[in-house]
C-alpha cells in the first residue's frame, strides 16, 4: 500500500512510519503545520518539523510539510475561543482530529494517490463480525487515545492505520531506540498544543476575546469572592475560585458567563443520573445506523474513568446517556464517548457527542 504517515515529530509517529516501512509499504511522511503562532509543546513548531524530517531521512522515506494553518485556525482555534465565551469546556484535540487529521489530511492523501493514512495515535482499529471498522482502546491503556479519535466516520476509519496502537509506550520507545531514532527519548506533548505553558490559557484567550471578571457565590447565595475571568472557569472545578479555603469542600456547580457569576457548592450538587449530548457521531455501517441497546461504558473526559451507562438515541444528532449510578455532571462542551465490549475486540467506540 501507499501510506502517508502524519509525522508530528514525536516518538509515536516516528515508530509508526518505521513499522509500516518494515512491513513493506510505500511510506511517505508528512508533517502538518497547524499553528503559525508561538508554541512550545505543539506538533507544529519548526523544531518538531525538523525532528520529523530527520527521522524520515533516517528511515529513507520522503517527507513533506503541509500547511493547514488556516484550516486549523478556522476549525480548532476559533471554536476553542468561542466555546469559552459561551461557557463551554472544549476539547481542541478532538476537533483537530475531526476536521484536520481525518478530514483535510485524509482528503489530501487521497488526492495525492495514497491508499491510506497512518498516525502515531495509541488506539487500535478493529473489524467487527459485521465487517465494520471500529476504534478500540490501545494495548497500553494508560496511553489510550481512542477517546479523542471517536469522531472518525466509518468511511474514514477504513483508510486509517494506527501502527503503534498494539504496542505499549515502553515498546514504542524501545523500538525507536533500537532504530537509533532521534525522537526515542523525546518528551510527550502536553495540554493544548497551540498555547505555550508560559502564556497560559487566560492570556491566550485574552488576546482573542474580551474576558470578564465574575463573582463567586455559594449555592445559598453567600458571596465568596471573585474570579478574574469567568470564561475560564469549568464546571466541577475546585481550585482557583477562592472556594477551597472553607471547612467544607466546594466545587463549581454552575457557570453563568452572561451573568458573570460562578456558583460553588458541595460535591453532591454536581451529581446527576444522565447527560444530554449533541453532535453525536455513531460508529458502525453508517452514521445513526447502530445505536446499542445494551450496556455501554461512558467516558466523559480525556482521562476520566468510564462509567456504566445506557444510551438513548433522541434523533437529530442528539442522545441521552443514563448513568447506572449517580455521576458527576459533565461540563458542557466536553465529549462523552461510549464504548461497548466484546471478548474478541475489548472496548471499542460505538459513538460519542458533546455534553450540552
Amino acid at each position: 500500500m501507499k501510506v502517508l504517515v502524519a509525522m508530528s515529530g514525536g516518538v509515536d509517529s516516528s515508530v509508526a512510519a518505521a513499522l509500516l516501512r518494515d512491513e513493506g509499504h510505500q511510506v511517505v511522511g508528512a508533517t502538518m503545520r497547524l499553528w503559525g503562532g508561538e508554541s512550545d509543546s505543539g506538533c507544529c513548531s519548526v523544531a518538531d518539523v525538523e525532528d520529523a524530517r530527520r527521522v524520515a531521512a533516517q528511515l529513507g522515506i520522503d517527507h513533506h510539510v503541509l500547511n493547514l494553518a488556516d484550516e486549523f485556525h478556522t476549525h480548532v482555534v476559533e471554536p476553542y475561543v468561542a466555546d469559552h465565551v459561551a461557557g463551554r469546556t472544549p476539547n481542541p484535540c478532538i476537533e483537530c482530529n475531526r476536521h484536520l487529521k481525518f478530514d483535510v489530511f485524509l482528503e489530501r492523501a487521497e488526492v495525492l494517490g495514497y491508499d491510506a493514512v497512518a498516525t502515531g495515535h495509541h488506539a487500535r482499529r478493529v473489524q467487527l463480525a459485521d465487517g465494520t471498522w471500529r476504534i478500540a482502546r490501545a494495548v497500553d491503556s494508560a496511553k489510550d487515545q481512542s477517546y479523542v479519535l471517536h469522531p472518525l466516520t466509518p468511511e474514514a476509519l477504513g483508510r486509517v492505520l494506527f501502527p503503534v496502537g498494539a504496542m505499549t509506550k515502553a515498546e514504542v520507545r524501545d523500538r525507536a531506540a533500537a532504530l537509533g531514532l532521534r525522537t526515542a527519548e523525546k518528551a510527550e506533548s502536553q495540554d493544548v498544543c497551540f498555547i505555550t505553558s508560559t502564556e497560559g490559557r487566560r492570556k491566550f484567550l485574552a488576546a482573542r476575546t474580551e474576558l470578564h471578571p465574575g463573582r463567586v457565590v455559594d449555592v445559598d447565595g453567600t458571596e465568596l469572592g471573585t474570579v478574574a475571568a469567568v470564561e475560564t472557569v469549568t464546571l466541577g472545578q475546585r481550585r482557583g475560585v477562592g472556594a477551597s479555603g472553607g471547612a467544607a469542600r466546594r466545587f463549581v456547580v454552575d457557570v453563568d458567563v452572561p451573568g458573570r457569576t460562578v456558583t460553588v457548592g458541595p460535591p453532591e450538587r454536581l451529581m446527576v443520573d444522565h447527560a444530554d449530548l449533541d453532535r453525536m457521531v455513531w460508529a458502525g455501517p453508517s452514521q445513526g445506523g447502530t445505536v446499542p441497546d445494551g450496556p455501554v461504558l461512558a467516558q466523559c473526559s480525556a482521562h476520566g474513568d468510564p462509567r456504566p451507562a445506557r444510551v438513548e438515541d433522541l434523533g437529530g444528532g442528539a442522545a441521552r446517556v443514563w448513568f447506572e449510578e449517580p455521576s458527576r455532571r459533565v461540563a458542557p462542551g466536553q465529549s462523552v464517548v461510549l464504548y461497548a465490549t466484546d471478548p474478541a475486540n475489548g472496548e471499542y467506540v460505538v459513538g460519542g457527542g458533546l455534553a450540552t
Partner: protein
Amino acid sequence: MSALIDLDHAATTPVRPEVVAAMEPFAELDYGNPSGSHRLARAAVRALDEARERCAAVLGCAPGEVVFTSGGTESDNQAVAGGMPPRSGTPVCSAAEHHAVLDVVQALDGSVVAVDAAGRIRLDLLATELDRLAATDRPPAVVSVMLANNEVGTISDLVEVRHVVDRHAPGTPLHTDAVQAAAWLDVADAAAHADLVSVSGHKLGSPKGIGALVVHHGAQVRPLLLGGGQERGRRSGTVNVAGAVGLATALELTAGSLRENGGRVAALRDRLADGLLDRVDGLVETVVVDRDRSHVLPGTCHVCIPGVDSETLLLLMEGAGVCASAGSSCSSGAAEGSHVVAACGVPPELAAGAVRLTLGRTSTDADVDAVLEALPAAVERLRSRA
C-alpha cells in the same frame, strides 16, 4: 523516480562548471586569509582584488564600491537599515519587496507603499508618502524598490522612481534589490540610478553564501557586522575569497550571455505560459494582460488557478517529476500565502492557487513539455475531486 525537472530557478540555480573550476584553487592551494601580509595572504588579496574589479565591471561601479556579503538578505538588510545602529529617519519600500527588505522596513517602523496590479510601486503614493514624512521628525532615510520581483517577475523602472525621490525627498538614497534581476538584466544600466544595489551569487550560477552590496554615488552605509574592519570597514569578517571569485565568474558569464540566454528562455517561457492558458480553464497569468509579457523577467511564469489548492497541486506535480513553488516558503518548508500576490490585488481565493514556474539557463524544451503535461493533469485530478 523519473528525471527531475527544475521549474524553480528563481529559488536557486545550479552552479556553473566554470565557476566550480574558478573557485577550486582557493580550497587547498591559495587558501590564505586576505587580511594577512605574507605570501599566502598576498595570493588571496590578489584574487580578491581581481574578483572585486570583475564584479565592478559587470555591475557598473568602481571596485571600491563593491562590498562582498553573505548574499541577498545581508545586502538588503544593510542597505535598508543603513548599518548598526540603523540610520535615523524612516525607511520606505514597496509592498511587493522581498521579506529581506520588507521585514527590515517594518522592524524599523518604516513606510510600505502600495503597488499597482503589476506589482510596481505606485509613484503617486510614493510621492505623497515622501512629502508626508518630510514634514515629520523622521524624514525618509532610504527608499527601497526592487529591480525585478522574485515572485511575479515584474521589472521596475528605476528612472521614474529616482525622479520621484529626487523631487520629493532629495538626498535620500535609493536602494534596489537586484537579486532576481541580475540573472536577466544588465544591472549596470538598469540600476544605474540606484545608490545601493543588492545581488546574490546563487541566483546566477555561483554557490550560496556569497553576494554583494554596491555602494554608489557616495552613499553612506555603516556596517551590520563589526569586527576586523574588512571591506573598508563596511563588512567585518574574513572575506569569502573563493565565493568572491565564484561570484565574479558567474556575473561575467551571465552578462556575456544576457541577450542570447534571455531570448531563448523568454521563448520557452512564452510557450509555457501560452500552453497553460490554452490548456487550463480559468487559469490567470499573474501581472500579465493579453499575453503581453514585455515587463516580466524572461524566466518567470506566475499563474493563479481557481478552485485549486497550490500546495496539493505542487505535490502532484512533484509526483510527475516537476519541481515548482507557490512563491515563498516559511522556515518549516510549508507553503505560505504570498504578500506579493495579495499586494497585486489578486483575490485570496485565486491566490490560493498560485504557482510560480521559473526557468533558467539550463531549461529545455523538454522541461516545458513536461510541465504542459503535468500541470493540466494535476489540475484535472484536483478539480474532479472537488
